[in-house]
């Protein structure tokens, strides 16, 4: 039989198909429709009600103005702005005090010292001795976030007399050795060793570089009028200008005599640094001070504030610690913040002082001056405040390391007169008119008499 579509098959198939369609069409439709239904719900009602309530209202603090005096023109706008945001009831008036050494004592005599005074090392001790600034111990003890361990020890300990603290330090510039790397390379002299740079190394390297006939020397000359420059030489030989209690002058001790005479002999030699007669030939002390940046010196021992000047000089340089003799030591030069005893707002003055000596504030000031801060926490912030942007290798770590071993300039009573006596003696020694061993024993008792007269 042929497979033809029969009528039966067709009708069956059609019936099945039609049945399927019919079933699909009869499926219930999904219809969305709104159904009203009564449901129990929780009703939230907002309603304004007047409630009588007794409250204690604190009066807003009266705005107090405190004066902050400092000698340098550091722009404090950012610091004072952020301070006022945090302490809106304290207004800080910043004053730059020129002729600091004469003006501050005059202000003290007139009773017009600023509430907070940023003062040099010896001056803050003198002001503390005579009651012109107050003891800060109660404020420090009452400020739990002021951690003394965060400060470098020598700087934290310095402004304390008979257990009374008179100042809080902020930033500091240590003395280091800057050296002209290009001149060292030209002369084939090895760079100063960062770990063991001694006086003998210094002399050796300086002599190797010196060429006085062509006005090139290995080292800067000693600034004879800057009497404090020589104190680090005495420290490096384990000597001191004064006893720790500043009651005696110790320059007549062998360590001090040896130290000063060593450097005087180097100065007078003429083949290490410009001698006094050679200084005349190059235009005097002022010109001698610029020899390093003029590329005429191998090394210059100076405060880290000359970093920018060296960058502007345009040659490749690097830094090393001060050379040492018996021990590593150097000057660390900075200032302290103190509160005047005549201040009528001592609490507010402390609030500002503490803020200005905080980690961030110190970091901001230190970055401006290219110094390290006196707080270890401020020196951990990057980029480091003492570093500058140069395209050659500089051993920047030398700078903050100085704070571990360096000392603050001494601060005896009647410092001006004492320095005059010491300075006159140094002038004679450095000009070759006298030997340290002859003159220091004469001068030391006179200095002792001056500094012990309180």
């Amino acid at each position, binding site marked *: 039989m042929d497979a033809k579509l029969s009528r039966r098959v067709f009708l069956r198939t059609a019936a099945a198909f039609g049945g399927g369609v019919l079933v699909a069409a009869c499926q219930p439709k999904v219809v969305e429709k709104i159904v009203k239904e009564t449901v129990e719900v929780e009703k939230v009602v907002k309603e304004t009600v007047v409630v009588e309530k007794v409250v204690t209202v604190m009066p807003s603090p009266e705005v107090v103005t405190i004066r902050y005096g400092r000698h340098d023109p550091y722009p404090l706008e950012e610091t004072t702005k952020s301070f006022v945001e945090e302490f809106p009831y304290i207004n800080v008036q910043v004053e730059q005090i020129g002729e600091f*050494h*004469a003006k501050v004592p005059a202000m003290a005599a007139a009773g017009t010292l600023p509430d907070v005074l940023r003062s040099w090392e010896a001056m803050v001790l003198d002001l503390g001795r*005579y009651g012109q600034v107050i003891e800060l111990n109660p404020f420090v003890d009452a400020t739990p976030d002021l951690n003394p361990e965060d400060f470098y020890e020598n700087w934290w300990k310095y402004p304390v007399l008979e257990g009374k603290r008179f100042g809080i330090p902020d930033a500091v510039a240590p003395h280091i050795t800057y050296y002209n790397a290009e001149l060292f390379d030209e002369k084939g002299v090895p760079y100063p060793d960062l770990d063991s740079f001694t006086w003998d190394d210094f002399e050796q390297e300086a002599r190797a570089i010196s060429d006085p006939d062509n006005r090139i020397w290995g080292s800067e000359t000693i600034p004879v*009028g800057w009497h404090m420059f020589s104190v680090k030489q005495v420290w490096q030989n384990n000597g001191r200008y004064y006893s720790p209690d500043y009651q005696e002058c110790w320059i007549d001790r062998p360590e001090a005599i040896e130290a000063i005479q060593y450097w005087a002999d180097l100065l007078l030699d003429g083949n290490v640094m410009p001698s006094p007669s050679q200084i005349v030939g190059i235009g*005097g002390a002022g010109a001698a001070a610029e020899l390093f940046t003029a590329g005429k010196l191998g090394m210059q021992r100076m405060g880290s504030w000359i970093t920018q000047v060296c960058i502007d000089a345009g040659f490749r340089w690097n830094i090393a610690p001060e050379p040492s003799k018996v021990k590593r030591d150097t000057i660390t030069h900075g200032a302290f913040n103190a509160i005047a005893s005549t201040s009528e707002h001592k609490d507010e003055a402390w609030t500002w002082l503490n803020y200005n000596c905080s980690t961030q504030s110190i970091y901001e000031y230190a970055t401006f001056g290219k110094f390290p801060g006196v707080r270890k926490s401020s020196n951990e912030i990057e980029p480091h405040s003492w570093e500058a942007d140069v395209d050659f290798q500089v051993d920047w770590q030398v700078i903050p390391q100085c704070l571990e071993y360096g000392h603050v300039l001494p601060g005896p009573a*009647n410092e001006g007169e004492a320095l*005059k006596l010491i300075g006159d003696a140094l*002038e004679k020694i450095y000009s070759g008119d006298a030997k340290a061993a002859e003159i220091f024993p004469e001068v030391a008792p006179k200095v002792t008499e001056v500094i012990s007269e309180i």
Partner: protein
Amino acid sequence: MSATTNLIGRTTTRRKRLREALTAYAFISPWIIGFVLFMGGPILASFILSSFRWKLIAPPRFIGFNHYIKMFTTDELFQLSIGVTFKYVLVSVPLAQVLALSLALLLNQRIRLLGFWRIVFYLPAVVSGVAGSVLWSWMYHNQLGIINNLLLLVGIQGPNWLFDKEIVLGSLIVKSLWNVGVPMIIYLAGLQGMPQELYEAAEIDGAGEWVEFWKISLPMLSPVIFFNVIMGFISGLQTFAEPYVMTGGGPDNATLFLGLHLYQSAFHYLKMGYASAMAWVMFLLILTLTLVQFKLGSRWVYYEAEA
């Protein structure tokens, strides 16, 4: 006239005089008040302070005459400064008088551009002490100064004028001679006030110019010379600006003048009482020297009025 009228008259006169006196004092009172506040008062205060030890930052402490005793016994710098000051004055004042008189004689001639030359020689006198000191510091500069550069042109290597302790005082003396304008003008005025009949009489007697100068000009000028010498000593003993600006008292205290030591004692060492005592000693020194000169002056100063 009755007694009553006399009494009324005298009372009226007294009242009138009193009113006149009060009016006069009222007119001069601003000066008196200013003098008391800014001169007399501080002078008295410094005298009192000279017997105190006062550091400015500590309260004053009475010590009597200790400052004066210390000055003349143990303060070597004070004694040195007296020596430096007197050396300076004893050389600079006579030199200045000779130079001023010589210039006045020259400017008393009938020469061309006389007015111009008088201005040129007087001009340094109107330059302030500090400005003049800065100017001379540059002139004395070892490398850049005009003096050494001019000397170099004739093959001479100039010294270090301000840093050689053997010659630095001489450098300051030379600088002081730049300021002879004021005594020069006074000498010029004196020369122009000379009675001409004396010169005519001398000419008739056959006196030459040199004799005329020694026998007529100088004696007639003696009061002017006397005045200029006294003023020269007074200002010389108070020299401050030149050593302060040019040398700072160095090198090795070779130019530590009394005025500079006084200033350093006050503002560098904060010894206000001691500085006050030094100021009074300076005043007494100047007063004594002036009185001595007045005493000696009676022997050689010729006053025409007395004759």
